[in-house]
């Protein structure tokens, strides 16, 4: 457990060593604010307050997933490229601990980013009717979803030496998981049901957006996260023998 905390702390701190991460934060928050202002508060038909909150979580999901792909692509690939992966492979930390530690660091950054945008749905509280539980459930959904996409990103990062290749691989995999529900229309049962269930957004994230906490969504994201972190650890383990 200490090794995991050590790696997580080290990586988390490394994201904030310079101004870069704060500039990225400000830029992404500005972008998120722009999307929110246009989609949820823009000119045209006024929306109900719970619709505005649902729109916010829609925007938040997109930005969170994009940020997770960008952050995770460098997690392991950068270490390999810089040659610092030797330090990790020769340390007392197991491959699983390395992977979990890095994932936790990314999750820390993404959670901070997500919560920094909390002023956006808070604006709705001024004139609208929104429950804090709805906001909490929405954030839980965002964090669960970006947890899964970060895990996919770490797996991608473990496969490649170059960040760009890792990022591209992760992006393709994530996009495939977003649009896989389309395959449900052209395949037959039981594969159609599997495809529909595998989609990372439709069935699993929509309830969180609307303030509904459901167990199957959490289990889906948790299982996806576990499998990809496990696969990443396996890849690192295999590389020890190279």
């Amino acid at each position, binding site marked *: 457990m200490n090794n995991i905390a050590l790696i997580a702390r080290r990586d988390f701190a490394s994201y904030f060593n310079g101004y870069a991460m704060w500039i990225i934060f400000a830029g992404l*928050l500005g972008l998120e*604010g722009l999307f929110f202002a246009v989609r949820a508060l823009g000119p045209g038909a006024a929306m109900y307050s719970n619709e505005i909150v649902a729109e916010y979580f829609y925007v938040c999901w997109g930005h969170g997933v994009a940020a997770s792909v960008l952050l995770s692509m460098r997690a392991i690939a950068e270490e390999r490229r810089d040659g610092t992966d030797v330090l990790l492979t020769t340390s007392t930390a197991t491959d699983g601990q390395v992977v979990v530690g890095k994932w936790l660091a990314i999750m820390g950054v993404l959670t901070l980013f997500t919560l920094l945008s909390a002023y956006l749905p808070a604006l709705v509280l001024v004139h609208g009717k929104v429950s804090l539980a709805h906001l909490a459930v929405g954030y839980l959904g965002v964090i669960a979803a970006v947890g899964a996409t970060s895990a996919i990103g770490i797996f991608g990062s473990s496969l490649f030496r170059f960040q760009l290749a890792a990022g591209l691989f992760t992006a393709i995999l994530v996009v495939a998981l977003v649009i896989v529900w389309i395959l449900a229309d052209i395949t037959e049962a039981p594969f159609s049901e599997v495809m529909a269930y595998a989609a990372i957004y439709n069935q699993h994230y929509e309830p969180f957006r609307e303030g509904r906490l459901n167990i199957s969504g959490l289990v889906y994201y948790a299982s996806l996260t576990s499998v990809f972190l496990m696969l990443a650890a396996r890849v690192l383990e295999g590389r020890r023998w190279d």
Partner: protein
Amino acid sequence: MFEIVTNSLLYLTLSVIIGLGLVVTLFVLVRDVLLRMSGSGLILLLGLAALFVGERWMGEGTARMAFSGLGVLVLLGSIGLRGFAMGRSEGERRTAHQRGLVFSGLVVVGLALYGITLESVTGALGFGEEALSRWTVTWQCLSPIVVLLGVLPVLGVDRVLAAHPRAIPRGALRRAVENGLGSALAISLLFPVNYLANTHDKTWDLAYFRTTAVGESTKSIVGSLAEPVTVTLFYPAGNDTRKELEPYFTDLQNASGGQIDVRVVDQALEPALAEELGVRDNGTIAFTQGEIHEKFKLDTDIERAKRDLKTLDEEVRKTLIKLTRGQRTIYWMVGHGEASTKEKEDQLRKLSVFKRGILDPENLKLVEFGITNGSADKVPDDASVVVLAAPEKELLPEEIDVLKAWLDGGGKLLLLSDPGSDKLTALTDHIGVEVGDGPLAHMQAFVPIVGGKADRVNLASNKFGSHESVKLLSRNSSQMGVVMPTVRWVRKKADTKNRVSTLMRSFPDTWSDDDGDFEAGEGEEKKVFEVAVAVSGEGEDGFKAIVVGDVNLYSDVLLQRSQGNALFARDTLLWLLDDPDAAGDIESEEDVKVVHTREEDLAWFAMTVLGMPLLILGFGIILVRVRGRNR
């Protein structure tokens, strides 16, 4: 025909492209195996992919046979190549190929498990329906797991072979196989875990929900009851909806000073009472005053009842009004292009929500009043209020005289005007007010609807007078405003003896845009204008009139979206009806639409896009500098 041909051509083209791609890839991989004695795991994967496409996407027919057949051939070819490579290898590499062969065999076993679920096999076995279902489901669930248990170790072995072309380190092969098996089992575990989570799913709806409290208006009504009322809630013991209702009705009882008696019964256990009140099942709330009964339904299932519980106060108030006040009649003038409940072309002149949402709950019957039923003769005796909603054509002189006589007799008039409609000077002079010509405009205090300068006439205001009909709006003016797309000014005539009170005014720097250019030109003075007034005639039994410079304020679009508009429409009408007790807040927990002015839009835009991001950036810069200094 053209579509069918096009679709077939498309499929053919796609099939050819995919086929060509497959062939080229195969060629490259086979060459690699033959030259370097590497593993054939990727060829195995290609074979599986072709088989999957054939079995799951190609339906029945030649295409399916082609793809599936190709898949099987490629699969068997990969095993053949593995055997060939094994024969040509030595030592650890030979062992690696042996392992690869074993696990490739496992893939074939997995496919065989799938094969025994095909119709051609199950048909020969002669199963009954239930047995067939169990047979098919069991093997079709196991098949992909067994295939995965074969594929991943094969890929692991091939990776070791590729990474170590000469000598394989001790333990690397065993580790690769273990990793492959472990990964396959972990991925396989995904399916039953998610299946169980899906079939035993639990959901908690935590979106905003609250049962309303008793509103001021309802409290006023029950507080002024002349005769006692009994409220009977028909719900079974322990019911969730009942638990939500009881606190509300307890508060209602307390507010009534003993005039309301509340009882909660199960309809099944009180059949005689239920019959007396005309109640057939639970989920009904009945109100009784003397011999008069009114009731409404509210579901016993809490999930279905949630929507109605949010507007419970409104429903209770409406029922109490029906029970205690009796029906009153509103006469709505027609025949001169008035805005109406039946308007089809101009949505801003459609007032059906005014009828449905304001008149009906107050137990007010609407009757059209035109030439055919006496508008040039006399206002009927049963009229409580006459409504004149921005007529586009002039009224007949006789009709004007009828309305004047109505007012002189202490009648009540709701006069709505609008730029473009007849100014009704003869009538407004009699009332003691004047109305303007063009629409009022403002540079900032408007609601953006169409975009551009034209929006400057869509005024919003939260500047209310001290008249009793707008006291609730006045008290909540910081949260509620009224939207008025195109509004005329209204003001007291200098020589009138009638009492004219301001209901609502515009913001300062408003101008009357008489030339219609949306700019404050010469002669268009900027100042505060009155836009709605209440007029009381001389003496105790003098007439009452509400004159509003904008009929659009009452339109469906705005009554539904703006709480301020709805409250203004309701409370001014109640004042006309001499029913101010019924005015006041109606509690509702229904979600509200967020309406915002252009000023607010700019403020929110600036904050969300610039303000907060810059604040966070500034914080980050300071933090980095402080940390840098501390090092």
